[in-house]
């Protein structure tokens, strides 16, 4: 630690960079809604109503349990991927990296459809198996069960785990592991007693985010789980806020949810800090292990699994967008008609406007959430003790509060402070930034915590200023964390819908909004087409972000 580095005005001002936006854009609307709701109306307090019902405990219990199982499964599936992304060098690595954030850009309804198209009873997988083995019934009946929920959450999150942990692993020193091997430890023992503990800061960091994401899950749990047997808190919040219009209850539920996520985050942040102390060491150069022989087969198998879980549902969705039936029950043929419909039915302007708006929002979100997330990571890693952990937890919370409740809060706040508000693009970007920058924070802070204090200290001793030290020593070491954070911020902004609907001007349309409208108007295949466009667009942008981040196109050259 260099206590002196955050003394003085510069250091203190740096605290304000992430704190002020979080307070204004997140904690203010949230407290407005809580205060409003807890002032109470007639009848018993919402908390009494909530906790006098055993159903509430069942819902809370299930929410925690499914989030826990999903997190563990995602981490286990993600670890090999993290090694691939972090240590190995192979062709197509950049594309694989770019693919990791794709699930996040798709609205949940499209993810559900993608799963059904691929894994469903009459989905691609089952029809294929039935055709090959001449079966009467679909052999692979995973949907509408608890496993389906876990599978879908793994779909979203194990790429995230691989990306976040991989960014950390990339600069992880091989020294201790090599030393262990030299001293006679086998590869398995070395992994579990040296390598894995070394990765713990990144693992806890990823676990916190994944847990939040699964905790908030709503449509995926309901539809793929098969119905109300599997209900998360978010479903009940939605019901209270939007259907029953029982705002007290919605606020009470949201408060319980926020409390649970806060304590969970607190634990992961604490564990991350503790783990960081044990592994602080020199940062190594990026890994360049080439795959060969048996290793190739093993990794081939892993990649096949990745393709099965992540790529196949998405490819099925893309495939669907090019297929149509010629006659009533005639054969499926390839066609561009859904794409044509997308751009002709309402004139070319609509889809183009949606694409333009989405891209502008996403780019601005990345530009704003990078400095915010970086500043937040910087100040929280450099401050000791409870205060740093508390702030870090508090800054992560925007990921863990129901967007339904947050939307209501925004609405109340706007009515309070700007009575004439009629929607603005700046407000949309601000909301996107608040949702997105915890990803940057998480992605960067694991790498920052690992940088040995002696490195910047040495630079300072040699006469570099704080800023110069940052630019020349620290920035290069956290580069891949930043790039990953930027990709996820971009993806989250591209996929966001709730805040956009509330805060944007009435005629502002984005891609996910257009998607929902298509589906609401029976145009499912055109929606698949627009979803495919969205994915293609995002892959292109992720590759561009990586290139901007300075990662070489050719991994062999590094």
């Amino acid at each position, binding site marked *: 630690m260099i206590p002196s580095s955050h003394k003085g005005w510069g250091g203190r001002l740096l605290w304000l960079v992430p704190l002020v936006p979080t307070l204004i854009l997140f904690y203010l609307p949230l407290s407005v809604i809580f205060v409003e709701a807890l002032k109470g109306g007639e009848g018993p307090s919402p908390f009494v109503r909530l906790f006098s019902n055993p*159903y509430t405990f069942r819902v809370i219990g299930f929410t925690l349990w499914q989030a826990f199982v999903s997190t563990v499964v995602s981490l286990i599936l993600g670890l090999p991927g993290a090694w691939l992304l972090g240590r190995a060098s192979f062709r197509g690595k950049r594309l694989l990296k770019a693919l990791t954030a794709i699930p996040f850009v798709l609205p949940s*309804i499209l993810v*559900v*459809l993608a799963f*059904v*198209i691929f894994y*469903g*009873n*009459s989905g691609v997988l089952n029809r294929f198996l039935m055709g090959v083995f001449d079966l009467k019934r679909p052999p692979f009946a995973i*949907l*509408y069960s608890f496993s389906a929920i876990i599978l879908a959450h793994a779909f979203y999150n194990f790429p995230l785990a691989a990306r976040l942990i991989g960014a950390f692993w990339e600069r992880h020193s091989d020294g201790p592991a090599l030393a262990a091997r030299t001293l006679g430890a086998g590869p398995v023992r070395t992994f579990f007693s040296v390598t894995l503990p070394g990765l713990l800061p990144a693992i806890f960091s990823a676990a916190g985010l994944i847990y939040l994401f699964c905790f908030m899950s709503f*449509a995926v749990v*309901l*539809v*793929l*789980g*098969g*119905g*109300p*047997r599997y209900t998360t808190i978010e*479903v*009940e919040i*939605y019901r209270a806020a*939007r*259907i*029953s*219009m029982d705002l007290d209850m919605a606020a009470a539920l949201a408060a319980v949810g926020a409390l649970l996520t806060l304590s969970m985050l607190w634990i992961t942040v604490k564990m991350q800090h503790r783990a960081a102390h044990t592994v602080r060491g020199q940062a190594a150069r990026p890994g360049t292990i080439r795959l060969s022989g048996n290793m190739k087969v093993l990794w081939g198998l892993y990649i096949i699994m990745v393709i099965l879980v992540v790529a196949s549902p998405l490819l099925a969705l893309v495939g669907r967008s090019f297929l149509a*039936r010629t006659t*009533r*029950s005639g054969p499926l043929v390839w066609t561009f008609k859904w794409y044509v419909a997308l751009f002709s*039915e*309402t004139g070319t302007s609509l889809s183009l406007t949606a694409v333009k708006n989405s891209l502008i929002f996403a*780019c*601005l979100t990345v*530009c*704003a959430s990078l*400095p915010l997330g970086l500043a937040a990571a910087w100040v929280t890693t450099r401050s000791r003790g409870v205060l740093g952990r508390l702030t870090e937890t508090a800054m992560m919370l925007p990921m863990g509060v129901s967007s339904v409740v947050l939307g209501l809060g925004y*609405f*109340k706040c706007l*009515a309070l402070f700007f*009575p004439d*508000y*009629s929607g*603005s*693009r*700046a407000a949309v*970007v601000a909301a996107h930034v608040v949702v997105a920058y915890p990803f940057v924070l998480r992605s960067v802070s694991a790498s920052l915590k690992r940088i040995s204090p002696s490195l910047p200290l040495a630079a300072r001793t040699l006469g570099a200023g704080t800023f110069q030290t940052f630019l020349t020593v620290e920035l290069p070491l956290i580069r891949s964390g930043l790039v990953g954070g930027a990709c996820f911020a971009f993806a989250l902004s591209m996929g966001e819908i709730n805040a956009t*609907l*509330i805060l944007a001007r*009435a005629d502002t349309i984005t891609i996910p909004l*257009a998607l*929902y*409208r*298509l*589906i*609401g108007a*029976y145009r*499912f295949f055109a929606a698949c087409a627009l979803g495919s466009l969205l994915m293609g667009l995002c892959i292109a942008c992720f590759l561009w972000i990586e290139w*901007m981040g*300075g990662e070489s196109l050719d991994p062999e050259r590094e």
Partner: protein
Amino acid sequence: MKRLILAVMCLCLAGLPAYAAAGKSDEKLVIYTYDSFASEWGLAPKVIPAFEEMSGIQVELISVGSSGQVLQRAMLEKENPKADVVIGIDNNLLAKAKKAGVLSPYRSKGLDNVPEALRYDPEYQVTPFDYGYFSMIYDSDIIKNPPQSLEDLTSEKFKKSVILMDPRTSGPGLGFLLWTVSAYGDDFADYWKRLTPSILTITDSWSSGYGLFTNGEAPIVLSYSSSPVYHVAFEKTDRYKAAAFKNGHYMQIEGAGIVKGAPHRKAAEAFIDFMLSDAFQKEIPLTNIMFPVNSATSLPESFSHAVKPEKSLQLLPEEIMEKNEGWISTWVDTVSK
């Protein structure tokens, strides 16, 4: 090159606060509506320009999500109303809207052309503009003998064949629960117990449920009796059919109301009149895929594929408001076992 792009990005960031809302316009009519009404494929692009041209009033249409949110937004702004007209108050929301006291009565002359049975608000706070019946839609390629009653759905042959929606999060889902209540009374929980084996999944929204259905995941889905019309009119297929139930179908009537304290009351009244006129009503069948309330409006040919039941079921708005929460709790208990 990269530095240049970085510099541009920094400039973008600096320009962010300047990228704010534009100014407001003068005299107009403000309408809150649900998203699929305002959508490019909804009624708005067909009827709003016609109204603007006819009346010379400039319309500001604001989409606030679902129809529940339309009412919610009006309730949140009760002290300082900004909207003049809210569109989307259906028969299940009516009692809630009245209790909230956010609407003010207006009896349009156009109501004379609306059958008595459809004028669901005797106080004229809400004016109906279209209606439909909840119905099971089935895939006729798979189901040769469609169910003919709610009871039929519980049959063994429809095991894991039905997709329903959750009444906690979806309008049609709530409609179906109320359907079972109006058909079975206090025994509706027993019915659901018998129905459970037939259910494949219960989705969060009509959109995901209908999406699962058109992807062939299950042969029966809860939707509207007019849904086949879309497939006939736009996809030229009569593969998807509505199952006519002899004991009747639960009904949904959609309406619009004038907000109490509306800033532009006269324009609002003109708009409600317009909603009942033929210019508006004739767009409903093929755009909203619902029945128009104006009995003088003729239906397109494709509507022969929509089931118009002889018997329609409805619950009293007051009863819904009073007992809704209890019904839903019973439902959750029954279905989650």
